[in-house]
Each structure stands twice: as structure tokens, then as C-alpha cells.
């Protein structure tokens, strides 16, 4: 039986493989990648749908059910014989998808994790509906429509945040196939309409019971609550969730500021916290004085707008204001004076991760997309600079990919002033907003280095990072602090460097174990566990 199923699977596998090859060839040769790669993505998503649905398509089309169930094979064996080859085939196709994605990264519509989740979800759901629908296309459309309706309902009910959509998606992933397997093993399959009626009623019931149960658990336990933490250089702890925003002085553990609203902390600059305050009539950009605890509304936008990708430099704060997926305008804050610049048309649809304004007249800026490709915008023209992780510092930008680390002095210039060849990557920094940081830690093939943007020099540091260790960095003027914490022991090794030279080393210990985030200030470190609890460790 397995041989027959492998044969059937191979037929489908061969078709999808041929389609992938044809599309890739056309995309490479004819330069149609802009249109063809999203098409390939759609075809790749259709494949698990059809593969899952086709598990019983032959029996359904050719009327083989009565024969199948009279064979000396148990129902579980039938299911496994059919499932295993198809599962292997879809995993192989998924394996093929990764290098293709790597090559055509910027043309893909879905993020990698979203794509993988959708891919598996479609297989599982279409497999679960394989006895219900007569056509694979109906399964695909139904899954998309049901998913969209449920996502809308969930969003309207406010049950889950965006992050928890993944959690929510796991409910149908778990319930539908489980109920299908249970029904398949327990019930008689013929006549199909009776089986389907029973299975559908049962699965919808289980789905809503699980959804309700998990929703209650999530709400009661507070798992769904996204709490944001931030630590200012001088040790002020900022905590924000949907119910309130609080600022606590780490020195004496006293509350400096508290408001019963969520203020999404964006950036701390010169003793001020800048954040987006949510309210019914629209978001407000506010500043909070970290010493006095006073709040000031700086800018008010209409509903559905939000502030993202800020940039800080000596003179001005810059915020990119978005609505939906579109960039709407750039807001410049210059000593309480604000300037609003409408986004140029070419820039409206760009998915910006990092943003740095160089000049507002003529409008010139550098931005990094979600795909980690960095571009320069100048007078209506967009120029591709580099692909990799990046860090801005004054008029310089450090760009790092797996092959090299480059620094551009003048961002309009395409000739780097510093190049380090070899396998490089910027060591993990918790906070990804583009602060003006003098030092950057680079992990290269030959060792770990500190790069100084002021002196354009690279100095090696003796730092070994094991698999179970994480790194946090603090960057204060000419001082750099590197904290390496061990997951197992909870011990944190803190290394201080001054002007790139080793200065001191000290061991601290935290009561938290397991994966955590670490924030560093001049006064101490804050470790946060699962974004729920925090602990401040004084230096």
C-alpha cells in the first residue's frame, strides 16, 4: 500500500518540482522576478493544500473506499501509509523553498515564519478536510476564508494581540487533525455524508471549546499581555502594558511616573522618554521627563496611525509615521519645534526597519528594510547600498553581513572607509532601534572585536561565548559594557571597556534562570524574564 501512496505522491511532487524549476528559470533569465516570485510563493502554498486534500482523492474519485476498508489493514495503518509519503514530500519542498527564498528574499510576500506556519497549517487543514470537500481548490479557498473570518472575529473581540495570532493559529492546527484522526479511527467512513456531518459537528464543537478554554486561560493568566521594558542610561526603568505605564527609579525603587494608559516606549534621549500613547481618538507622540515625571503631548495623529523607526542624533529626533503598511510622513522634532515631511511617493510602500534622516532639504535619508537591505533615498531616487545588519553613528553607517563588515563615512558615497573581511555578524543587541552608539561588537571568523566609530579602529577582545550564553551591551560615551550571562547558572560576567581598551571585569548573579533579556545602564543591569518579571542588579 505504501508503494502505491509513494507513487501517487511522487506524481504531485514531480508537478510541483517542474513548476518551481520553470518559474525560477524564467525569473532568472527573463528578469520577471517581481511578478514570478510571489506567484511561486502562491504555488508553494497551494502544494500542501492539494497534497493534504489528495490523501483520499483517489478513493473519492474512483470509488475505492469500500475496497480499501475491506483490506486486511487497520485504519491507523491506512492513515499512516497515506500521510507519511505526503508529509515527506511537503517537507522536501519546504526545504527547497529556503534557499530560493534566500536568493529572492525581497520579492517574497510573506515573512519566512509566517510562510512556514501557513504552509503547515494548509497541509494539516486540507488533510483534515480531505473527506469533506470534493475539490482541493475549495479546500484552499475555504481555509483562507475561514481563517480570515476567524482572524477578524478574534481581532474584533480583542482576544489576542498580533503575537498571539500565532498562538491562535495553533488551535485549528491541533483541533481539526486530532478530531479528524479520532473520527477516522472511531467512525465508519461510509456513507461519506454521515461521516462528514458527524466529524464537522464534532470538530467545530471541540474547536470552540478549546478556543474558549484557551482564551480564558490566556486572559486570566495574563500571557497575552505584552509588557514593554526599557532602561534609560541613568537607570530609570520604564514598564508599559495595556493597562498602565510606569517609570521607576532603580536607585531607590520609587515610582516617578504612572498613568493608566499604554505608552509604547520608543526611545530615551536626554532624560526624556519618547513614546506613542494609545487613545480612542488617535495616537499621540508624548515625551515624559524622567526626572520630574511630567508628560507632554508633542504630536497628535488620527486613528490608525502609529510611530515607528525613530532616529536620534545630536540635534533632532525623527519618527516615521505609518498607517497600515504605508509610510505616511516623517516627523522631525527639533528642540520642541516640529516639522512634518510628507513621505515621497517612492517611499510609501517600503517596509522600514531602521531609518536615519541625513538632511531634510533636499530630503535625504537611509533606511533598512525588513529584509535587511539598506537603501539611500535622495531627491526621488532610491539607491541600494548593502545587505546585512547595520548600525548608525553620526554620519557613519556600519554594515555587517556574513562575509564582511564595512563602514561608510558619507552615506551618499558607495566607497566604504573601513572593510573587515571574513565571517562577521553584529553580536545580539536587545534594543534594535538605531541609537547613536560609538561602539559595535562584531563576531568575526577570527575572533570577537570592538569597532570604534570615532577612530575607525577594530580591536580584538578576549570574549568566549558559549551556546547557553547571551550577550547584552551598554554603550555610554567612550565606555562600553558587555554582559555575558549564563542560562544555566544565572551568573553574569560584566566586562567594561574604555576607548576600546579592556578596563574591568566583574561577576554578578541573578536569581533568574533560562532565557532572558538584559538591559544595561550606567548604574546597573535589568534582567527581564519572559517579559513578565524584572530584576535590577546594581553595578
Amino acid at each position, binding site marked *: *500500500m505504501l*508503494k*502505491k501512496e509513494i507513487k501517487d505522491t511522487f506524481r504531485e511532487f514531480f508537478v510541483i518540482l517542474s513548476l518551481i524549476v520553470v518559474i525560477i528559470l524564467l525569473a532568472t533569465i527573463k528578469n520577471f522576478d517581481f511578478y514570478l516570485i510571489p506567484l511561486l510563493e502562491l504555488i508553494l502554498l497551494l502544494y500542501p493544500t492539494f497534497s493534504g486534500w489528495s490523501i483520499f482523492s*483517489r*478513493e473519492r474519485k*474512483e*470509488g*475505492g*473506499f*469500500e*475496497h*480499501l*476498508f*475491506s*483490506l*486486511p*489493514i*487497520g*485504519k491507523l*495503518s491506512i492513515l499512516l501509509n497515506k500521510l507519511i509519503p505526503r508529509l515527506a514530500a511537503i517537507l522536501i519542498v519546504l526545504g527547497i523553498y529556503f534557499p530560493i527564498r534566500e536568493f529572492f528574499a525581497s520579492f517574497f510576500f510573506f515573512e519566512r515564519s509566517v510562510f512556514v506556519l501557513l504552509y503547515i497549517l494548509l497541509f494539516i487543514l486540507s488533510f483534515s478536510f480531505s473527506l469533506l470537500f470534493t475539490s482541493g481548490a475549495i479546500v484552499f479557498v475555504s481555509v483562507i476564508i475561514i481563517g480570515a473570518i476567524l482572524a477578524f472575529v478574534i481581532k474584533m473581540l480583542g482576544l489576542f494581540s498580533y503575537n498571539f495570532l500565532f498562538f491562535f493559529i495553533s488551535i485549528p492546527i491541533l483541533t481539526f487533525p486530532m478530531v479528524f484522526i479520532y473520527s477516522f479511527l*472511531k*467512525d*465508519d467512513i*461510509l*456513507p461519506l455524508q*454521515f461521516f462528514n456531518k458527524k466529524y464537522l459537528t464534532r470538530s467545530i464543537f471541540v474547536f470552540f471549546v478549546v478556543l474558549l478554554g484557551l482564551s480564558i486561560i490566556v486572559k486570566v493568566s495574563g500571557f497575552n499581555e505584552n509588557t514593554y521594558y526599557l532602561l534609560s542610561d541613568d537607570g530609570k526603568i520604564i514598564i508599559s502594558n495595556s493597562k498602565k505605564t510606569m517609570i521607576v527609579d532603580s536607585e531607590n525603587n520609587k515610582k516617578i511616573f504612572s498613568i493608566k494608559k499604554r505608552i509604547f516606549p520608543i526611545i530615551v534621549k536626554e532624560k526624556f522618554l519618547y513614546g506613542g500613547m494609545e487613545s480612542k481618538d488617535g495616537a499621540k507622540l508624548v515625551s515624559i521627563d524622567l526626572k520630574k515625571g511630567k508628560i507632554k503631548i508633542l504630536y497628535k495623529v488620527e486613528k490608525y496611525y502609529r510611530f515607528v523607526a525613530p532616529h536620534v542624533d545630536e540635534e533632532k529626533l525623527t519618527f516615521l509615521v505609518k498607517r497600515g503598511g504605508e509610510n505616511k510622513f516623517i516627523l522631525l522634532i527639533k528642540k520642541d519645534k516640529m516639522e512634518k515631511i510628507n513621505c515621497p511617493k517612492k517611499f510609501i510602500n517600503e517596509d522600514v526597519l531602521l531609518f536615519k534622516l541625513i538632511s531634510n532639504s533636499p530630503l535625504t535619508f537611509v533606511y533598512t528594510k525588513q529584509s535587511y537591505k539598506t537603501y539611500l533615498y535622495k531627491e526621488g531616487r532610491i539607491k541600494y547600498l548593502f545587505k546585512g545588519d547595520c548600525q548608525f553613528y553620526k554620519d557613519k553607517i556600519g554594515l555587517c553581513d556574513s562575509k564582511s563588515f564595512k563602514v561608510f563615512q558619507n552615506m551618499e558615497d558607495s566607497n566604504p572607509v573601513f572593510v573587515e573581511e571574513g565571517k562577521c555578524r553584529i553580536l545580539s543587541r536587545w534594543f534594535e532601534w538605531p541609537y547613536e552608539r560609538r561602539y559595535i561588537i562584531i563576531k568575526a571568523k577570527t575572533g570577537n572585536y570592538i569597532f570604534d566609530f570615532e577612530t575607525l579602529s577594530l580591536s580584538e577582545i578576549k570574549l568566549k561565548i558559549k551556546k547557553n550564553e547571551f550577550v547584552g551591551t551598554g554603550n555610554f560615551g567612550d565606555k562600553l559594557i558587555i554582559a555575558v550571562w549564563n542560562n544555566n547558572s544565572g551568573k553574569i560576567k560584566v566586562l567594561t571597556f574604555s576607548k576600546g581598551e579592556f578596563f574591568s571585569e566583574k561577576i554578578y548573579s541573578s536569581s533568574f534562570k533560562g532565557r532572558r533579556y538584559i538591559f544595561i545602564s550606567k548604574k546597573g543591569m535589568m534582567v527581564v524574564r519572559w517579559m513578565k518579571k524584572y530584576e535590577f542588579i546594581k553595578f
Partner: protein
Amino acid sequence: MIEIRNLSFEFEKRKILKSINFNIEKGECILIAGKNGAGKTTLLRCLSGVYNKHGGEILLDGKSIGPKDRDKIGYLPSSLSLYDKMKIGEAIEFHKRVYSNFSLIDILTYKLEENRKIEELSKGEKVLFYLILTLSHDPSYFFIDDVLHFLDPYLREIFLNILIEKMEEKKLSIIMSSQTFSEIEGLPTQIIILDRGEIVLNENIETIKKTYVKITAKEIPDNLPVVYKTDWDSFEEAYVYPYSENFSGDFKVEFLRLSDIIKSIIGGNYAKKRD
């Protein structure tokens, strides 16, 4: 031996089979008859494993039937459900891998063309091919669901001859449902008649042939166990069961053929009495 104990089955709370009990010994052939919707196909589907969710027990040599026991069972459904797009050769290969004791039997009068697709076969050829496939795994029990009407008289004869041969040679036990009775008269050893999911008659063929009679008289005596009676202008006609030679009176007794017995039972008062 297969023992069927209190077998019941329902769809959507509608009872299709109600407490069915009977046994089948080696070398026996049971004919299941009944009007449309009586539960014949459901009964055979329960026995062959297509339906598992039934009440009661089906025992093979004293043990409850499991998937592996179906190695000893052959099933020829009236839907003739095989993979239609498969070639004959592929279907043979498929059965070779599925059954532990598969060895293709040869029927001299029917030549298998391995490259032909099953969907290209006529209904009659399909029945014969299915029969070859099923008997090739050497089953001890064979369940046949009303396929005779697909066959022309020539193929029907081949079909029945193969069954008789296997019954004699291998002591094959057969349970078959059919609506065509005249040509199979010599095959069944026992008859079961179903009506609305219940057994209304379970009798040895020889016994029923001797005890189920048609009586014609001016007036049918009241003491006879009449199954079905028709009043004509000058005389009365009645089907009597069980008839005994001890019954006396002024009437004419006619022994019937199996097909006439079944027809009269299905249509007659015997079934209606049990409503």
C-alpha cells in the same frame, strides 16, 4: 466458523440491522435475500470490515474479527469499488503486497490483459476480475453483494462454477446477497431473509423446499399456517409454511422453486406480521 451475535447497526438513529444472529460453517453457502433497503448490503459491509461501528459481535473461530483476520475474508461489493485508474497489472501487484497468501488463480475462459485500466472493463469483466483477485488470496470466507445481475448468462455460469469448485475443493464458505435466484438454486445451503433489518427466515434450503408450499382449494382450511393468501373467483390460493404431511383436507399441494419461495415471502404476509 463465523458467528454473528446480536449484530445491530444504525445510521443517524435509524436502525438498519436489529439483533442479527446466525452462524456460517466451513463449506456452507448462505443466501441473503430481502427487499430493497432490508439491510443486506449493510450486513455484508459489517462482516467484511467496511463498517466497524456496530453493536453485537462478529466472531471468527471464537475470536472477535480484527483487521488482520480479513486476510481470510474475500469481499465482492456491488459497487465494484476498485481504483478505476489502476491497470490490471497494478491492481494484482497491489493485492500481492496487501495479502499474505496471494497467488493469482487462472481462469481459462477469461484472459487478463495487464495493461488495461480497470475503468476500461465492462461491468461483467470487472466482476470476474474482482472475483479472480479476491479468490487469489485464498479466502476461507467469501461475501458477495448482489453482483450476478452484472453478468451475462455465459459469464454468470463461469462465475457460479468457480464458486462451486472452491466450495468443494477448499471448503470455501460463502455469504451472498442476490436478487437473481433462478440460476443459483443449486448453490446455497441455507437461506436468510431480511426485512427492515430483522431476520424473518433462517432455514436450511432443503427444509424450506419441503415445508414451504402453495395450496389451492375452494376454501383454505383455517388450521393451516398461511403466509400469504389470494382469493380468486372460484378458488383460494395460499402459501403455507411450515407445511407438514400431517395436514389433511381437500386441497392441492404444490412444491415451489426457491425463487418463488423467496418472492412470496418478501411480498407476503410473513413479513407484514412482523411489522
